[in-house]
Protein backbone atom coordinates (compact mmCIF):
# COMPACT_ATOMS: atom_id res chain seq x y z
CA UNK A 1 0.00 0.00 0.00
CA UNK A 2 1.45 3.34 -1.01
CA UNK A 3 1.19 6.03 1.65
CA UNK A 4 1.93 9.42 0.17
CA UNK A 5 2.34 11.22 3.50
CA UNK A 6 4.91 8.74 4.79
CA UNK A 7 6.82 8.94 1.54
CA UNK A 8 6.90 12.71 1.61
CA UNK A 9 8.05 12.64 5.21
CA UNK A 10 10.86 10.24 4.56
CA UNK A 11 11.90 12.35 1.58
CA UNK A 12 12.14 15.48 3.74
CA UNK A 13 13.87 13.51 6.49
CA UNK A 14 16.41 12.46 3.94
CA UNK A 15 16.86 16.06 2.91
CA UNK A 16 17.27 17.08 6.53
CA UNK A 17 19.86 14.42 7.15
CA UNK A 18 21.92 14.91 4.02
CA UNK A 19 21.84 18.57 3.20
CA UNK A 20 22.86 21.60 5.14
CA UNK A 21 19.45 23.13 4.70
CA UNK A 22 17.57 25.16 7.24
CA UNK A 23 14.14 24.09 8.45
CA UNK A 24 12.55 26.85 6.41
CA UNK A 25 14.34 25.67 3.26
CA UNK A 26 13.16 22.12 3.78
CA UNK A 27 9.65 23.30 4.42
CA UNK A 28 9.73 25.32 1.23
CA UNK A 29 11.03 22.42 -0.84
CA UNK A 30 8.53 20.03 0.69
CA UNK A 31 5.77 22.42 -0.29
CA UNK A 32 7.16 22.55 -3.78
CA UNK A 33 7.08 18.77 -3.96
CA UNK A 34 3.48 18.73 -2.78
CA UNK A 35 2.44 21.32 -5.38
CA UNK A 36 4.06 19.28 -8.10
CA UNK A 37 2.39 16.08 -6.89
CA UNK A 38 -1.03 17.74 -6.72
CA UNK A 39 -0.68 19.05 -10.25
CA UNK A 40 0.34 15.64 -11.55
CA UNK A 41 -2.50 13.91 -9.73
CA UNK A 42 -4.86 16.48 -11.25
CA UNK A 43 -3.68 15.42 -14.70
CA UNK A 44 -4.69 11.85 -13.92
CA UNK A 45 -1.63 10.20 -12.40
CA UNK A 46 -1.87 7.96 -9.34
CA UNK A 47 -0.25 9.21 -6.11
CA UNK A 48 2.73 6.86 -6.38
CA UNK A 49 3.43 7.82 -9.99
CA UNK A 50 3.05 11.48 -9.12
CA UNK A 51 5.42 11.09 -6.18
CA UNK A 52 8.11 9.35 -8.21
CA UNK A 53 8.01 11.89 -11.01
CA UNK A 54 8.01 14.85 -8.64
CA UNK A 55 10.98 13.55 -6.69
CA UNK A 56 12.82 12.91 -9.91
CA UNK A 57 12.09 16.43 -11.14
CA UNK A 58 13.30 18.00 -7.93
CA UNK A 59 16.56 16.32 -8.61
CA UNK A 60 18.90 14.48 -6.34
CA UNK A 61 19.25 15.66 -2.79
CA UNK A 62 22.99 16.15 -2.90
CA UNK A 63 22.71 18.44 -5.89
CA UNK A 64 20.02 20.51 -4.23
CA UNK A 65 21.88 20.88 -1.00
CA UNK A 66 25.05 21.66 -2.88
CA UNK A 67 23.30 24.51 -4.68
CA UNK A 68 21.86 25.72 -1.41
CA UNK A 69 25.21 25.52 0.28
CA UNK A 70 26.57 28.14 -2.09
CA UNK A 71 24.09 30.59 -0.64
CA UNK A 72 24.24 29.62 3.02
CA UNK A 73 27.92 29.24 3.64
CA UNK A 74 27.66 30.20 7.28
CA UNK A 75 24.61 28.04 7.66
CA UNK A 76 25.31 26.00 10.73
CA UNK A 77 26.18 28.80 13.08
CA UNK A 78 23.63 31.07 11.50
CA UNK A 79 20.95 28.54 12.30
CA UNK A 80 21.85 28.71 15.90
CA UNK A 81 21.01 32.38 16.00
CA UNK A 82 17.53 31.19 15.21
CA UNK A 83 15.64 33.08 12.57
CA UNK A 84 12.00 32.31 13.09
CA UNK A 85 9.89 32.71 10.01
CA UNK A 86 6.73 34.29 11.27
CA UNK A 87 5.98 36.98 13.75
CA UNK A 88 4.37 34.79 16.40
CA UNK A 89 7.47 32.63 16.52
CA UNK A 90 9.53 35.80 16.68
CA UNK A 91 7.56 37.02 19.65
CA UNK A 92 7.89 33.71 21.44
CA UNK A 93 11.57 33.70 20.68
CA UNK A 94 11.97 37.17 22.15
CA UNK A 95 10.10 36.02 25.22
CA UNK A 96 12.40 33.00 25.56
CA UNK A 97 15.49 35.16 25.30
CA UNK A 98 14.09 37.52 27.93
CA UNK A 99 13.40 34.54 30.17
CA UNK A 100 16.93 33.26 29.69
CA UNK A 101 18.42 36.63 30.64
CA UNK A 102 16.17 37.07 33.68
CA UNK A 103 16.66 33.51 34.91
CA UNK A 104 20.42 33.67 34.46
CA UNK A 105 20.53 36.86 36.53
CA UNK A 106 18.24 35.37 39.17
CA UNK A 107 20.25 32.15 39.39
CA UNK A 108 23.50 34.09 39.68
CA UNK A 109 22.03 36.39 42.32
CA UNK A 110 20.71 33.41 44.26
CA UNK A 111 24.31 32.21 44.59
CA UNK A 112 25.24 35.60 46.02
CA UNK A 113 22.40 35.91 48.54
CA UNK A 114 23.99 33.76 51.27
CA UNK A 115 27.02 36.04 51.03
CA UNK A 116 24.90 39.02 52.11
CA UNK A 117 24.38 37.23 55.39
CA UNK A 118 28.09 36.63 55.80
CA UNK A 119 28.01 33.13 54.31
CA UNK A 120 30.37 33.41 51.36
CA UNK A 121 30.92 30.94 48.57
CA UNK A 122 34.49 30.13 49.64
CA UNK A 123 35.84 29.11 53.03
CA UNK A 124 39.07 30.41 54.59
CA UNK A 125 41.21 28.07 52.46
CA UNK A 126 39.62 29.34 49.26
CA UNK A 127 37.71 26.10 48.75
CA UNK A 128 34.06 26.11 47.75
CA UNK A 129 31.96 25.33 50.82
CA UNK A 130 30.28 21.93 50.90
CA UNK A 131 26.91 23.64 51.31
CA UNK A 132 27.20 25.12 47.85
CA UNK A 133 28.43 21.92 46.26
CA UNK A 134 25.60 19.94 47.83
CA UNK A 135 22.98 22.47 46.83
CA UNK A 136 24.48 23.31 43.47
CA UNK A 137 21.56 21.90 41.50
CA UNK A 138 19.05 23.96 43.43
CA UNK A 139 20.60 27.17 42.19
CA UNK A 140 20.17 26.36 38.50
CA UNK A 141 17.82 23.46 37.80
CA UNK A 142 14.65 25.10 39.20
CA UNK A 143 15.12 27.89 36.68
CA UNK A 144 15.52 25.47 33.81
CA UNK A 145 12.40 23.68 35.03
CA UNK A 146 10.55 26.99 35.21
CA UNK A 147 11.72 27.85 31.69
CA UNK A 148 10.11 24.67 30.36
CA UNK A 149 7.01 25.03 32.52
CA UNK A 150 6.44 28.45 30.98
CA UNK A 151 7.27 27.26 27.48
CA UNK A 152 4.93 24.28 27.74
CA UNK A 153 2.17 26.44 29.28
CA UNK A 154 1.89 24.02 32.18
CA UNK A 155 -1.05 24.05 34.54
CA UNK A 156 -0.84 25.41 38.03
CA UNK A 157 -1.00 21.91 39.43
CA UNK A 158 2.16 20.91 37.55
CA UNK A 159 3.94 24.02 38.77
CA UNK A 160 2.98 23.19 42.34
CA UNK A 161 4.11 19.56 42.03
CA UNK A 162 7.49 20.41 40.52
CA UNK A 163 8.13 23.24 42.94
CA UNK A 164 7.04 20.99 45.79
CA UNK A 165 9.53 18.29 44.79
CA UNK A 166 12.37 20.80 44.59
CA UNK A 167 11.57 22.33 47.97
CA UNK A 168 11.09 18.96 49.64
CA UNK A 169 14.39 17.67 48.21
CA UNK A 170 16.21 20.83 49.33
CA UNK A 171 14.80 20.61 52.84
CA UNK A 172 15.58 16.91 53.21
CA UNK A 173 19.19 17.02 52.15
CA UNK A 174 19.93 20.11 54.23
CA UNK A 175 18.25 18.80 57.34
CA UNK A 176 20.17 15.51 57.20
CA UNK A 177 23.23 15.59 59.42
CA UNK A 178 26.55 14.33 58.09
CA UNK A 179 29.30 12.68 60.09
CA UNK A 180 32.90 11.95 59.25
CA UNK A 181 33.93 10.55 56.70
CA UNK A 182 30.83 11.92 54.92
CA UNK A 183 30.36 8.96 52.57
CA UNK A 184 26.61 9.29 52.22
CA UNK A 185 26.81 13.06 51.86
CA UNK A 186 29.20 12.70 48.92
CA UNK A 187 26.94 10.09 47.36
CA UNK A 188 24.05 12.51 47.69
CA UNK A 189 26.12 15.19 45.95
CA UNK A 190 26.55 12.92 42.93
CA UNK A 191 23.06 11.46 42.77
CA UNK A 192 20.92 14.45 43.58
CA UNK A 193 21.65 16.35 40.32
CA UNK A 194 20.76 13.25 38.28
CA UNK A 195 17.51 12.85 40.21
CA UNK A 196 16.62 16.53 39.77
CA UNK A 197 17.59 16.44 36.10
CA UNK A 198 14.96 13.76 35.59
CA UNK A 199 12.47 16.06 37.30
CA UNK A 200 13.49 18.78 34.83
CA UNK A 201 12.91 16.11 32.19
CA UNK A 202 9.28 15.83 33.26
CA UNK A 203 8.87 19.58 32.72
CA UNK A 204 10.68 19.35 29.38
CA UNK A 205 8.37 16.65 28.09
CA UNK A 206 5.29 18.40 29.45
CA UNK A 207 1.89 16.85 29.08
CA UNK A 208 3.01 13.73 27.24
CA UNK A 209 5.50 12.71 29.90
CA UNK A 210 4.19 9.16 29.91
CA UNK A 211 4.66 8.62 26.18
CA UNK A 212 7.90 7.22 24.85
CA UNK A 213 8.20 9.87 22.12
CA UNK A 214 8.48 12.74 24.56
CA UNK A 215 10.94 10.83 26.70
CA UNK A 216 13.09 9.94 23.73
CA UNK A 217 13.17 13.65 22.91
CA UNK A 218 14.33 14.31 26.43
CA UNK A 219 17.12 11.74 26.07
CA UNK A 220 18.16 13.47 22.85
CA UNK A 221 17.93 16.81 24.57
CA UNK A 222 20.18 15.61 27.38
CA UNK A 223 22.91 14.52 24.98
CA UNK A 224 22.81 17.72 23.00
CA UNK A 225 22.65 19.89 26.08
CA UNK A 226 25.75 18.15 27.41
CA UNK A 227 27.74 18.80 24.24
CA UNK A 228 26.57 22.38 23.94
CA UNK A 229 27.07 23.00 27.62
CA UNK A 230 30.69 21.94 27.36
CA UNK A 231 31.22 24.24 24.37
CA UNK A 232 29.54 27.25 25.96
CA UNK A 233 31.36 26.69 29.25
CA UNK A 234 34.65 26.52 27.36
CA UNK A 235 33.77 29.92 25.94
CA UNK A 236 33.17 31.32 29.41
CA UNK A 237 36.52 29.95 30.58
CA UNK A 238 38.32 31.54 27.64
CA UNK A 239 36.67 34.86 28.48
CA UNK A 240 37.71 34.43 32.11
CA UNK A 241 41.35 33.67 31.37
CA UNK A 242 41.60 36.36 28.73
CA UNK A 243 40.24 39.03 31.10
CA UNK A 244 42.55 37.84 33.83
CA UNK A 245 45.68 38.03 31.68
CA UNK A 246 44.86 41.30 30.00
CA UNK A 247 44.29 43.01 33.37
CA UNK A 248 47.44 41.48 34.79
CA UNK A 249 49.31 43.27 32.05
CA UNK A 250 48.39 46.57 33.69
CA UNK A 251 49.05 45.22 37.21
CA UNK A 252 45.44 44.96 38.30
CA UNK A 253 44.39 41.72 39.93
CA UNK A 254 40.82 40.95 38.97
CA UNK A 255 40.84 37.29 39.87
CA UNK A 256 38.71 37.63 42.97
CA UNK A 257 36.16 39.80 41.24
CA UNK A 258 36.03 37.50 38.21
CA UNK A 259 35.71 34.35 40.24
CA UNK A 260 32.90 35.86 42.30
CA UNK A 261 30.94 37.45 39.49
CA UNK A 262 31.93 36.38 35.99
CA UNK A 263 32.19 32.70 36.81
CA UNK A 264 28.98 32.57 38.81
CA UNK A 265 26.84 34.66 36.50
CA UNK A 266 28.61 33.30 33.42
CA UNK A 267 28.10 29.75 34.60
CA UNK A 268 24.39 30.29 35.22
CA UNK A 269 24.00 32.07 31.90
CA UNK A 270 25.90 29.27 30.14
CA UNK A 271 23.50 26.68 31.55
CA UNK A 272 20.39 28.58 30.52
CA UNK A 273 21.71 29.60 27.12
CA UNK A 274 22.58 25.97 26.44
CA UNK A 275 19.06 24.92 27.28
CA UNK A 276 17.64 27.69 25.11
CA UNK A 277 19.85 26.86 22.12
CA UNK A 278 19.20 23.15 22.20
CA UNK A 279 15.48 23.74 22.59
CA UNK A 280 15.27 26.46 19.96
CA UNK A 281 16.91 24.69 17.10
CA UNK A 282 16.21 21.03 17.44
CA UNK A 283 16.88 19.95 13.90
CA UNK A 284 20.36 21.42 13.47
CA UNK A 285 21.36 20.40 16.90
CA UNK A 286 20.03 16.90 16.62
CA UNK A 287 22.94 16.06 14.43
CA UNK A 288 25.71 16.35 17.00
CA UNK A 289 25.36 13.60 19.60
CA UNK A 290 24.44 10.92 17.03
CA UNK A 291 27.45 11.83 14.88
CA UNK A 292 29.82 11.61 17.84
CA UNK A 293 28.19 8.33 18.83
CA UNK A 294 28.58 6.93 15.33
CA UNK A 295 32.25 7.90 15.17
CA UNK A 296 33.12 6.42 18.53
CA UNK A 297 30.99 3.31 18.77
CA UNK A 298 33.15 1.24 16.35
CA UNK A 299 36.29 2.46 18.14
CA UNK A 300 34.92 1.51 21.54
CA UNK A 301 33.90 -1.85 20.22
CA UNK A 302 37.47 -2.52 19.01
CA UNK A 303 39.00 -1.48 22.34
CA UNK A 304 36.56 -3.48 24.41
CA UNK A 305 36.81 -6.58 22.27
CA UNK A 306 40.60 -6.36 22.49
CA UNK A 307 40.38 -5.95 26.26
CA UNK A 308 38.14 -8.98 26.52
CA UNK A 309 40.45 -11.14 24.39
CA UNK A 310 43.54 -10.06 26.33
CA UNK A 311 41.74 -10.73 29.60
CA UNK A 312 40.85 -14.23 28.49
CA UNK A 313 44.28 -15.06 27.07
CA UNK A 314 46.29 -13.76 30.04
CA UNK A 315 43.79 -15.10 32.54
CA UNK A 316 44.10 -11.89 34.59
CA UNK A 317 40.75 -11.25 36.14
CA UNK A 318 40.04 -7.61 36.94
CA UNK A 319 41.36 -6.63 40.34
CA UNK A 320 38.32 -5.66 42.28
CA UNK A 321 38.64 -2.41 44.06
CA UNK A 322 35.78 0.02 44.41
CA UNK A 323 37.49 2.45 42.03
CA UNK A 324 37.64 -0.20 39.34
CA UNK A 325 33.99 -0.98 39.82
CA UNK A 326 33.24 2.70 39.26
CA UNK A 327 35.39 2.41 36.16
CA UNK A 328 33.20 -0.42 34.90
CA UNK A 329 30.12 1.65 35.74
CA UNK A 330 31.51 4.33 33.48
CA UNK A 331 32.11 1.80 30.75
CA UNK A 332 28.49 0.69 30.90
CA UNK A 333 27.23 4.27 31.00
CA UNK A 334 29.40 5.14 27.99
CA UNK A 335 28.20 2.13 26.03
CA UNK A 336 24.64 2.99 26.93
CA UNK A 337 25.21 6.56 25.77
CA UNK A 338 26.70 5.45 22.46
CA UNK A 339 23.92 2.97 21.82
CA UNK A 340 21.27 5.43 22.88
CA UNK A 341 22.41 8.25 20.64
CA UNK A 342 22.69 5.99 17.65
CA UNK A 343 19.16 4.80 18.37
CA UNK A 344 17.84 8.29 18.99
CA UNK A 345 18.81 9.48 15.51
CA UNK A 346 17.34 6.44 13.91
CA UNK A 347 14.20 6.49 11.84
CA UNK A 348 11.90 3.82 13.27
CA UNK A 349 10.53 3.08 9.81
CA UNK A 350 13.91 2.18 8.33
CA UNK A 351 15.11 -1.43 8.28
CA UNK A 352 18.05 -2.60 10.40
CA UNK A 353 21.40 -1.16 9.35
CA UNK A 354 25.08 -1.73 10.13
CA UNK A 355 24.94 0.43 13.25
CA UNK A 356 22.22 -1.70 14.76
CA UNK A 357 24.49 -4.73 14.53
CA UNK A 358 27.40 -2.72 15.87
CA UNK A 359 25.21 -1.63 18.77
CA UNK A 360 24.34 -5.19 19.62
CA UNK A 361 28.00 -6.25 19.44
CA UNK A 362 28.94 -3.34 21.67
CA UNK A 363 26.27 -4.21 24.24
CA UNK A 364 27.17 -7.91 24.30
CA UNK A 365 30.89 -7.21 24.76
CA UNK A 366 30.12 -4.78 27.57
CA UNK A 367 27.84 -7.34 29.22
CA UNK A 368 30.51 -10.03 29.16
CA UNK A 369 33.21 -7.74 30.57
CA UNK A 370 30.88 -6.46 33.25
CA UNK A 371 29.73 -9.96 34.09
CA UNK A 372 33.32 -10.94 34.89
CA UNK A 373 33.85 -7.79 36.91
CA UNK A 374 30.64 -8.19 38.85
CA UNK A 375 31.26 -11.75 39.87
CA UNK A 376 34.53 -10.59 41.38
CA UNK A 377 33.05 -7.63 43.23
CA UNK A 378 30.12 -9.53 44.67
CA UNK A 379 32.51 -12.09 46.07
CA UNK A 380 34.60 -9.36 47.68
CA UNK A 381 31.55 -7.52 48.94
CA UNK A 382 30.38 -10.53 50.81
CA UNK A 383 33.87 -11.09 52.19
CA UNK A 384 34.59 -7.51 53.36
CA UNK A 385 31.19 -6.16 54.30
CA UNK A 386 29.03 -3.49 52.81
CA UNK A 387 29.85 0.21 52.70
CA UNK A 388 27.59 2.87 51.21
CA UNK A 389 30.04 3.53 48.37
CA UNK A 390 30.29 -0.12 47.39
CA UNK A 391 26.55 -0.54 47.51
CA UNK A 392 25.97 2.58 45.39
CA UNK A 393 28.54 1.50 42.80
CA UNK A 394 27.02 -1.96 42.76
CA UNK A 395 23.49 -0.61 42.39
CA UNK A 396 24.55 1.58 39.48
CA UNK A 397 26.21 -1.36 37.85
CA UNK A 398 23.12 -3.52 38.16
CA UNK A 399 20.81 -0.76 36.90
CA UNK A 400 22.96 -0.20 33.81
CA UNK A 401 23.42 -3.92 33.32
CA UNK A 402 19.67 -4.45 33.39
CA UNK A 403 19.19 -1.65 30.90
CA UNK A 404 21.76 -3.02 28.45
CA UNK A 405 20.66 -6.62 28.84
CA UNK A 406 17.11 -5.57 28.02
CA UNK A 407 18.32 -3.69 24.97
CA UNK A 408 20.39 -6.67 23.80
CA UNK A 409 17.43 -9.01 24.21
CA UNK A 410 15.13 -6.68 22.27
CA UNK A 411 17.74 -6.12 19.58
CA UNK A 412 18.05 -9.85 19.02
CA UNK A 413 14.28 -10.15 18.86
CA UNK A 414 14.18 -7.24 16.44
CA UNK A 415 16.74 -8.85 14.13
CA UNK A 416 14.70 -12.04 14.20
CA UNK A 417 11.74 -9.85 13.23
CA UNK A 418 9.90 -10.76 16.40
CA UNK A 419 9.40 -7.15 17.59
CA UNK A 420 9.13 -3.70 16.15
CA UNK A 421 11.90 -1.23 16.73
CA UNK A 422 9.38 0.86 18.66
CA UNK A 423 9.53 -1.76 21.41
CA UNK A 424 13.22 -0.98 21.99
CA UNK A 425 12.43 2.69 22.33
CA UNK A 426 9.63 1.93 24.75
CA UNK A 427 11.91 -0.23 26.89
CA UNK A 428 14.57 2.46 27.00
CA UNK A 429 12.18 5.27 27.84
CA UNK A 430 10.37 3.23 30.48
CA UNK A 431 13.70 2.35 32.04
CA UNK A 432 14.13 5.99 33.03
CA UNK A 433 11.94 5.11 36.03
CA UNK A 434 14.63 2.77 37.30
CA UNK A 435 17.21 5.56 37.25
CA UNK A 436 14.74 7.92 38.84
CA UNK A 437 14.03 5.55 41.70
CA UNK A 438 17.65 4.49 42.18
CA UNK A 439 19.02 8.05 42.31
CA UNK A 440 16.24 8.95 44.75
CA UNK A 441 17.17 6.00 46.95
CA UNK A 442 20.84 6.89 47.01
CA UNK A 443 20.26 10.59 47.56
CA UNK A 444 17.55 10.39 50.21
CA UNK A 445 17.43 6.92 51.75
CA UNK A 446 21.10 5.88 51.86
CA UNK A 447 21.93 8.51 54.49
CA UNK A 448 19.26 7.08 56.77
CA UNK A 449 20.28 3.45 56.22
CA UNK A 450 23.93 4.20 56.89
CA UNK A 451 23.28 6.57 59.79
CA UNK A 452 24.60 9.66 57.94
CA UNK A 453 28.18 8.42 57.90
Amino acid sequence: MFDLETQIHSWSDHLRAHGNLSDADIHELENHLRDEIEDLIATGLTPDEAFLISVKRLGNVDAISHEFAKVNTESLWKHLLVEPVDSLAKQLNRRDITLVVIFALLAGTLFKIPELFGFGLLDQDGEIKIFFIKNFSFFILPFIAAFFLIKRKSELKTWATILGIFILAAVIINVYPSFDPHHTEILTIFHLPLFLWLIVGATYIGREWQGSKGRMNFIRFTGEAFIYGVLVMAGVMVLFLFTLVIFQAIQIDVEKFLAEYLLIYGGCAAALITVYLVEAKKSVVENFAPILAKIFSPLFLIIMATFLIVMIITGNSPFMERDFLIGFDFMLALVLGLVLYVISARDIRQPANLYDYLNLALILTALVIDGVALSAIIFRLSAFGITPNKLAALGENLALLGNLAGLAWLYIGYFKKKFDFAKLIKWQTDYLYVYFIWTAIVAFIFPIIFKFI
Partner: protein
Amino acid sequence: MNVSKDLIAASATPLILAILKDYDSYGYAIIKRVKEMSENQIIWTEGMLYPVLHRLEEQLLIESYWDKSEAGRQRKYYRIKESGLTELELQKKQWEIVHNALARTWNEESNS
Protein backbone atom coordinates in the same frame (compact mmCIF):
# COMPACT_ATOMS: atom_id res chain seq x y z
CA MET B 1 15.85 24.52 -28.90
CA ASN B 2 17.52 24.76 -25.51
CA VAL B 3 18.55 28.11 -24.12
CA SER B 4 22.13 27.99 -22.92
CA LYS B 5 22.88 27.70 -19.22
CA ASP B 6 24.68 31.03 -19.08
CA LEU B 7 21.76 32.85 -20.59
CA ILE B 8 19.31 31.19 -18.22
CA ALA B 9 21.45 32.17 -15.26
CA ALA B 10 21.83 35.75 -16.50
CA SER B 11 18.13 36.21 -17.11
CA ALA B 12 16.99 34.66 -13.83
CA THR B 13 17.12 37.83 -11.75
CA PRO B 14 15.18 40.12 -14.13
CA LEU B 15 12.59 37.41 -14.78
CA ILE B 16 11.97 36.77 -11.10
CA LEU B 17 11.81 40.46 -10.31
CA ALA B 18 9.40 41.08 -13.19
CA ILE B 19 7.11 38.25 -12.10
CA LEU B 20 7.10 39.41 -8.50
CA LYS B 21 6.37 42.95 -9.65
CA ASP B 22 2.95 41.79 -10.88
CA TYR B 23 2.04 39.88 -7.74
CA ASP B 24 3.57 38.01 -4.81
CA SER B 25 4.39 34.44 -5.67
CA TYR B 26 6.10 31.26 -4.51
CA GLY B 27 8.74 28.98 -5.99
CA TYR B 28 6.58 26.43 -7.73
CA ALA B 29 4.34 29.08 -9.32
CA ILE B 30 7.35 31.09 -10.50
CA ILE B 31 8.79 28.10 -12.33
CA LYS B 32 5.42 27.43 -13.96
CA ARG B 33 5.03 31.04 -15.00
CA VAL B 34 8.48 31.25 -16.56
CA LYS B 35 7.73 28.06 -18.45
CA GLU B 36 4.49 29.57 -19.74
CA MET B 37 5.97 32.94 -20.67
CA SER B 38 8.81 31.32 -22.60
CA GLU B 39 6.47 28.88 -24.34
CA ASN B 40 8.19 25.92 -22.70
CA GLN B 41 11.63 27.07 -23.80
CA ILE B 42 12.96 28.05 -20.38
CA ILE B 43 12.54 25.38 -17.72
CA TRP B 44 14.11 26.19 -14.40
CA THR B 45 15.10 23.60 -11.86
CA GLU B 46 14.35 24.00 -8.17
CA GLY B 47 18.00 23.60 -7.35
CA MET B 48 18.65 26.76 -9.31
CA LEU B 49 15.57 28.83 -8.41
CA TYR B 50 15.59 28.67 -4.62
CA PRO B 51 19.21 29.68 -4.19
CA VAL B 52 18.59 32.66 -6.49
CA LEU B 53 15.50 33.61 -4.50
CA HIS B 54 17.45 33.39 -1.26
CA ARG B 55 20.28 35.44 -2.68
CA LEU B 56 17.88 38.13 -3.86
CA GLU B 57 16.41 38.11 -0.39
CA GLU B 58 19.83 38.59 1.13
CA GLN B 59 20.46 41.49 -1.22
CA LEU B 60 17.21 42.97 0.12
CA LEU B 61 15.66 43.12 -3.32
CA ILE B 62 12.81 40.85 -2.28
CA GLU B 63 11.40 39.66 1.02
CA SER B 64 9.59 36.50 2.03
CA TYR B 65 6.71 35.71 4.32
CA TRP B 66 4.72 32.60 5.21
CA ASP B 67 1.08 32.41 4.37
CA LYS B 68 -1.59 29.78 3.97
CA SER B 69 -2.07 28.29 0.51
CA GLU B 70 -5.49 27.44 -0.89
CA ALA B 71 -5.01 23.89 0.38
CA GLY B 72 -4.31 25.25 3.87
CA ARG B 73 -0.57 24.52 3.90
CA GLN B 74 2.00 27.02 5.06
CA ARG B 75 3.71 28.35 2.00
CA LYS B 76 6.62 30.72 1.59
CA TYR B 77 5.71 33.67 -0.58
CA TYR B 78 8.09 36.25 -2.00
CA ARG B 79 7.35 39.95 -2.39
CA ILE B 80 9.37 42.54 -4.30
CA LYS B 81 10.78 45.46 -2.34
CA GLU B 82 11.38 49.11 -3.27
CA SER B 83 15.05 48.42 -4.03
CA GLY B 84 13.95 45.42 -6.10
CA LEU B 85 11.85 47.65 -8.31
CA THR B 86 14.81 49.99 -8.83
CA GLU B 87 17.03 47.02 -9.63
CA LEU B 88 14.44 45.77 -12.13
CA GLU B 89 14.42 49.14 -13.94
CA LEU B 90 18.20 49.05 -14.07
CA GLN B 91 18.23 45.51 -15.45
CA LYS B 92 15.59 46.41 -18.00
CA LYS B 93 17.78 49.21 -19.33
CA GLN B 94 20.81 46.93 -19.51
CA TRP B 95 18.89 44.24 -21.35
CA GLU B 96 17.51 46.86 -23.74
CA ILE B 97 21.03 48.00 -24.56
CA VAL B 98 22.06 44.42 -25.30
CA HIS B 99 18.88 43.75 -27.18
CA ASN B 100 19.14 46.89 -29.31
CA ALA B 101 22.76 46.26 -30.11
CA LEU B 102 22.03 42.71 -31.16
CA ALA B 103 18.99 43.76 -33.20
CA ARG B 104 21.02 46.42 -35.05
CA THR B 105 23.92 44.18 -35.90
CA TRP B 106 21.60 41.45 -37.07
CA ASN B 107 19.69 43.97 -39.24
CA GLU B 108 22.94 45.15 -40.79
CA GLU B 109 23.84 41.55 -41.58
CA SER B 110 20.55 40.96 -43.35
CA ASN B 111 20.76 44.31 -45.16
CA SER B 112 24.20 43.85 -46.54
